[in-house]
């Protein structure tokens, strides 16, 4: 295995749900990589497919309504896209772990915290209670839970939201997974607690080398945390870039619109009205025929009735937009 190979490489990921009114494709040809020891962001609004990407990778899309297919999902070189549910269970929690938004709903309220945090060790490594308790204590120290020894025997409701999320991160990391997927891990937390949890995750990446997929709607979190970013819209990747490129040279009109419309705490108000993106996210069952963003786009052109591919706009930077096709007719004054 080459250390330069990504820890995760996803190609052609497609997830569909069948319902009364026919099939809906919630992910369409999703492809991205996660480098070793990198924090890679998936950012988008509700319905963009960012959480569905995580569930698809984890084999957690509900069946039989949902179906997942992919050309390949290479996890440390092993293709996990064709594994059966039993094999997937052995991977989950051991090789890929996930941290969710609301830790209270992922924890059993009547079981002690240490038993739950240590459960992956019992499942995947068959350790005894004493060894598990010791490992959980180590993990509690690693994730900065104060008075870790006394917290082992706590029940979830006896911990604050911030401590519960630290415990969930401890549980995610306890088998030293190759990849941690964090789905809006701080969205339910207060801003001061959020800052502490984000600092913890950065620190874990630096000290332990954990590779992380960070799923969020918050471009502030992307800017603070990520090395690379994937912007999703209506089930597709619409822009992929290094984090600095994304913020300095956003190349998809959707990314530009998002960056313009986020309220900023560090900049004084410039005008009474804020820039916004008109309209709303399309219904996935009734997508426009061409570019999915075209109905809301201020730079729409004749080509946009045909679906664009991800087009290169620079080194490791791509955007799904006809503005970047050779021979595209650019709006006046627009620099390529």
């Amino acid at each position, binding site marked *: 295995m080459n250390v330069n190979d990504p820890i995760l490489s996803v190609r052609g990921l497609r997830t569909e749900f069948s319902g009364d009114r026919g099939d809906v494709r919630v992910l369409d040809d999703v492809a991205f990589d996660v480098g070793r020891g990198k924090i890679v962001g998936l950012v988008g*609004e*509700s319905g963009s497919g960012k959480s569905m990407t995580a569930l698809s990778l984890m084999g957690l899309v509900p069946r039989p309504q949902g179906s997942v297919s992919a050309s390949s999902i290479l996890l440390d070189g092993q293709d996990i896209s064709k594994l059966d549910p039993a094999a997937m269970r052995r991977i989950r929690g051991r090789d890929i772990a996930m941290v969710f938004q609301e830790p209270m709903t992922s924890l059993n309220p009547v079981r002690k915290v240490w038993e739950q945090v240590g459960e992956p060790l019992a499942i995947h490594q068959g350790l005894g209670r004493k060894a598990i308790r010791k490992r959980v204590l180590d993990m509690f120290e690693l994730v900065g839970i*104060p008075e870790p020894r006394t917290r082992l025997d706590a029940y979830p409701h006896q911990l*604050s939201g*911030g*401590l519960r999320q630290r415990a969930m991160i401890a549980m995610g990391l306890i088998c030293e997974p190759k990849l941690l997927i964090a789905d809006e891990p701080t969205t339910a937390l*207060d*801003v*001061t*607690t*959020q*800052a*502490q949890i*984000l*600092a913890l995750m950065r620190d874990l990446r630096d000290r332990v080398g954990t590779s992380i997929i960070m799923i969020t*709607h*918050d*471009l*502030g*979190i*992307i*800017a*603070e945390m990520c090395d690379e970013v994937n912007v999703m819209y209506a089930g597709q990747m619409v822009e992929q870039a290094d*984090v*600095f490129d994304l*913020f300095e040279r956003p190349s998809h009109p959707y990314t530009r*619109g*998002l*960056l313009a*419309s*986020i*309220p*900023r*705490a*560090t*900049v*004084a*108000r410039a005008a*009474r*009205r*804020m*820039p*916004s*993106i*008109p309209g*709303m*996210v399309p219904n996935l069952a009734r997508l426009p025929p061409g570019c999915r963003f075209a109905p809301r786009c201020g730079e729409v052109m004749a080509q946009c009735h045909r679906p664009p591919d991800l087009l290169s706009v620079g080194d490791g930077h791509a955007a799904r937009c006809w503005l970047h096709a050779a021979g595209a007719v650019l709006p006046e004054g627009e620099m390529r």
Partner: protein
Amino acid sequence: MTGSALQPETGTAAPDDRIVLSTRDLTKHYRVGGGMFAGPPRVVRAVDGVTLDIRARETFALVGESGCGKTTLGRVMLRLQEPTSGTIRYRGTELTSLGEGPMRALRKNLQIVFQDPFASLNPRMRIGEILAEPLRSHGYGTPGEIRDRCTELLEMVGLRRQYLRNYPHQFSGGQRQRIGIARALANKPDFVVCDESVSALDVSIQAQVLNLLSDLQDQLKLTYFFITHDLAVVRQFADRVGVMFLGRLVEVGTTEELFARPLHPYTMLLMSAVPRPDPRRRGEDRPMVQGEIPSPMNLPKGCRFHTRCPFARDICRVEDPALQTLGGRSVACHFPLDG
């Protein structure tokens, strides 16, 4: 009550009609627990001595973290919940001593928009009925006049009149919030509490709804009491800000003063905790709040913030600082930062 004394904002010598709503030493305490096996009941001081003047046609943002009492304060100000003590004045009328009938009549002027306005509404009612209900209960007019007003309200918030026949589940989050706003504005209020009204919306939609609120404020001469946990929205939307911590206001000022030069350490630490959409600045070493918020049932002695404050000294552990006016700004701190 210690720590709650405050001069009303007389420094500006503004005529009284510039103040729409004011509170003096407002408190709301809850008893929790108690009972056969639970031991003696304990008291949660959700709002603990708040004195505040809201000026006509301003947007006053109340910002704080969960459990700080901001939602309770918003509800008590409108007497949706009864205060434990203190007074509320709305345009010269003392609300706390007002009888049920006159209070009901005044309620037309005082409205609230929630985070999800549909959570409390009947999913089987059409939008037309949802909008007509507050009009009927305040005797707005004939059925024809009510129908016209509903159409007008819908168009006012940027929705088509055809939607009057639709049901709540047929709308997106942004559209629902527009309907919630239309309903709150049905009886032409002039004071509107917005409680996390844009917090659940996607950013592209959030900006649309904030712009709508701005436009309506200009057209209808509204005053907003804007409750939120989101400091970025506060900076882009509010004229003045109150920062709340554990039932108290710890700082009040104009948005620009407060963000440019926070006086209270908590304000400064809150602002520094907001993730910045600027990757070039992520290497910067920023001060971080330590530890956890104390329980409102078991408040620390002295300043409520001292257990998390990096600048706390001996006096902070003993004496509860009052909200004081300092060069036209208000702060409750023994050692305010350089203003």
